[in-house]
């Protein structure tokens, strides 16, 4: 660790960290496109995907199409779900587990969880971002080519 943290070849070490981070990002992007079995993958071959379980955690309700059908969106938009809509509202965040049905096609809801505190969490998150953007420059400063802690010591 001492060698890694020394000033010797510091620029090369920083460059290596940036390159490795970029490589990880590319790898994760590839993984995100291929690993999770999602609605788009089901739609590529609906018959073969019949009965596959889909989990959609923290998705937003974007349409309510009657008493037993609604749509949710997150990375994929307007995924139709068959399930009771009583108590649902547009913009609400829900987590849904269901199975893919090629008839429709639609996700047949088997479990749903509402997230009534989601907006509070988003609000706290925004306050946190503002505090961080104000607080971090207060806590650190750039001096003689190095980052130093200025508050609290």
């Amino acid at each position, binding site marked *: *660790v*001492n060698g*890694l*943290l*020394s*000033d010797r070849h*510091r620029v090369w*070490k*920083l460059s290596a*960290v*940036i390159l*490795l*981070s*970029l490589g*990880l*990002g*590319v*790898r*994760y*992007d590839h*993984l*995100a*496109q291929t*690993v999770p079995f999602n609605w788009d993958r089901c739609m590529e071959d609906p018959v073969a995907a019949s009965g596959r379980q889909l*989990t959609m*955690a*923290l998705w937003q309700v974007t349409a309510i199409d009657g008493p037993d059908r609604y749509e949710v969106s997150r*990375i994929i938009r307007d995924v139709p779900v068959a399930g009771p809509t009583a108590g649902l509202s547009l913009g609400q965040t829900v*987590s849904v*587990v269901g199975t893919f049905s090629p008839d429709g096609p639609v996700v047949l809801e088997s*479990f749903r*969880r509402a*997230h*009534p*505190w*989601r907006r*509070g*969490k988003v609000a*706290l*998150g925004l*306050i*946190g*971002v503002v*505090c*961080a953007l104000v607080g*971090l420059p207060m*806590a*650190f400063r750039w*001096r*003689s080519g*190095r*980052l*130093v*802690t*200025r*508050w*609290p*010591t």
Partner: protein
Amino acid sequence: MADLITHAAVAVLAQRLVRSPQVACLVAGSVLPDLLSRLPSMFFAEVDRRVHPLPTLLQFGWEPFHLPVGMLLASMGLALLFPEAHRRQVLAALLGGMALHLGLDLLQDHLGQGYLLGFPFIRGSFELGWIGSEATVPWAPLLVAIAAWSWRHPPKAQMLVAQRPVDSAEE
């Protein structure tokens, strides 16, 4: 993920136990995983949705900073920006803060869609699922109040350390 306020408050409280000489780095470490991953990811997702389609790399490529291997890299990179004399302390504090962050997030339940802790070597995801994903929200104000009190009333030994000008060695 828990919200940033909760993460920072937990880090302030943890400081009371670990007594890191780099308090700012510990607290920064506790919020950086979200700032480095979620924030740019959400920004580019919004641009992609509302303005112009973007490469998926801009949405997903930040996620490793919320996973152990990315946290290690980010901590190492940031520590290298500090004066050599403080780097070990800074690295330890940043890693400690990030570990706290991940530990708190792992408590949450996302219906089995947990965190890829072994990325890029192992594909399986993990979460403890002990609390709901918003369970910390109602407790956040109380947690912030306790953290603020703790910040204003540090242990005596910590006050003595705080009076020492850490940066003076570099001046």
